[in-house]
């Protein structure tokens, strides 16, 4: 394969881990790997280069505009102007999905989504997506002409440095966006978070319906903190408004692959399992012995979370 472009995201001068994961896999599949950035390229050119990108196509500061329409239009214009990547890889992130969706319409090609494996067969890329809660894998490839667009789930590949020097920065002009570019970010809020990010934590403790009420979620947060981990949630309690969407683990939330995943009062709907079954070790506590989550747990406890977790917290506190 000739050239793969990777949509690289960054904040505070640091490249997102999903983008580094994509660069690592792209390097194994293509002769040339280049990054596309919605923002300034210079501050991250060294890091992107160290992970295998030879060039960074950067739009420059987007100001208060959203990445979706700006980056999609810029990529489409570059391709129209003669740039010819065989594929563009995006992380399944808030902005990654926006850019891929807009670009798909501009180029008239589909996006292959929720990819967890990416391979080459007969000269084309094949993406594999888990369905039915990760029990079945479906592989898909493009059969039309044009650029292949893939949305890849975080944690599918391991990031790895290539030892390359800084990437050269090339301007990626953003055309006039018309009405599509009229949304403006007027303020940015960082939610206070102590401890590691959900999708990067070594330990994730998640709560579900079995907690019974929203107030009991504090047990999950306490346990996560004691274990130096992050607190997650099933879709059921996010839908119920107990915790924000940013905590959701599952098909429609974050995919996590920690060393230890502790599922508390979560039955194990397919929706949830697809987001955590890649964890190295799974501990599940559920009062229903028939709960599907117990079928994939390394240690399954048939018991009441309201009894087991407080004792667990007490035992861990006594040690520290």
């Amino acid at each position, binding site marked *: 394969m000739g050239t793969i472009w990777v949509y690289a995201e960054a*904040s505070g001068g640091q490249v*997102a881990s999903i983008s580094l994961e994509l660069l690592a896999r792209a390097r194994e599949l293509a002769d040339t790997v280049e990054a596309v950035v919605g923002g300034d390229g210079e501050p991250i050119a060294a890091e992107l280069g160290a992970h295998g990108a030879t060039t960074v196509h950067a739009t420059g500061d987007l100001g208060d505009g959203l990445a*979706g*329409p700006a980056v*999609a239009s810029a990529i489409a214009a570059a391709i129209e102007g003669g740039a010819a990547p065989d594929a563009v890889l995006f992380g399944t*992130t*808030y902005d990654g999905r*926006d850019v*891929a*969706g*807009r670009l*798909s*319409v501009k180029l008239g090609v*589909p996006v292959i*989504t*929720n990819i967890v494996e990416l391979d080459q067969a007969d000269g084309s890329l094949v993406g*594999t997506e*888990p369905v039915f809660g990760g*029990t*079945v*894998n479906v*592989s*898909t*490839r493009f059969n*039309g002409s044009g650029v292949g667009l893939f*949305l890849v789930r975080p944690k599918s590949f391991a990031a790895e440095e290539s030892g390359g020097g800084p990437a050269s920065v090339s301007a990626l002009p953003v055309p006039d966006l*018309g*009405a*599509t570019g*009229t*949304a403006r*970010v*007027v303020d*940015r*809020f*960082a*939610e206070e978070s102590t401890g590691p990010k959900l999708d990067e934590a070594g330990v994730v403790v998640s709560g579900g319906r079995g907690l019974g009420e929203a107030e009991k979620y504090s047990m999950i947060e306490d346990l996560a903190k004691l*274990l130096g981990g992050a607190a997650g949630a099933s*879709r059921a309690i*996010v839908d*119920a408004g107990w915790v924000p*969407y*940013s905590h959701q683990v599952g*098909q*429609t939330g974050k995919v996590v692959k920690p060393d*230890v995943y502790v599922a508390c009062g979560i039955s194990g709907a*397919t*929706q949830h399992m697809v987001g955590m079954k890649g964890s190295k070790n799974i501990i599940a*506590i559920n009062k229903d*012995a028939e709960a599907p989550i117990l079928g*994939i*747990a390394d*240690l399954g*406890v*048939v*018991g009441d979370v309201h009894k*087991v977790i407080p004792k*667990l917290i007490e*035992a*861990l506190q006594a040690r520290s």
Partner: protein
Amino acid sequence: MDIVVCVKQIPDPADPGELDPETNTLKRDMKLIMDESDSYGVEMALQLRDAAGEGEVTLVSMAPHEEVNGLRSALAMGADKAILVSDEALAGTDALGTARVLAAAIGRAQADLILAATESSDGYTGTVPEQVAELLGLPSVTFAKEIQADGGEVRVKRQTEAGYDEVRCPLPAVVSVTAGVVEPRYPSFKGIMAAKSKPMDQVGIADLGVSPDQVGWAGGGQEITDVSPAPEREAGEIITDEGDAHERIVALLEELRIV
């Protein structure tokens, strides 16, 4: 304020069925229900309409076999009318083709605001709202956790990795909402009865001016090369709590050097 809500009708997620061995797509020949993810958009639309004190909420859906079951649920919640696109030529349509159909159907309604879920519970591509916006040439804000209408614009709190962004977006616009953005109401008996007589505009792709080669298998531009079972994860040790299960958990955490 006139609002369109995109509603997907899907197999019950509790019993999602299976893939058709011939086409490798999800079988949809059972009764379909409203995707729960869409109930948030419907509720949001009802609240915005009622706050504005005027306007209509129109549902737009694409479904096989002229399925209206899920649309009736949303009409029972209080939506005013629905447009259903059902056409044999749509079998096998992917996300981009779906967006083409929805965009064309939305064109039949006068909309200030178009709402959708961030992704469906079955296909979960998560690209359709943005594709619809691009096809309609509109601005968009995805992953909304709060929406307020303010004159000719919406103010949206958009979920981000770090927290959220406050985004102002002029109307008309497309906004996708996350689950939990509002609490969907349960339909009342009166609502359920009223839903039966609300307008249901049933159309095919020819009515929308969508060409058959833009949708279905032909319009997809992708093919499934393999379907195989994923490696199974074996169950480990199962214990029943007799008041000491926490000790076993601590022992395992020690073994794994977490504590």
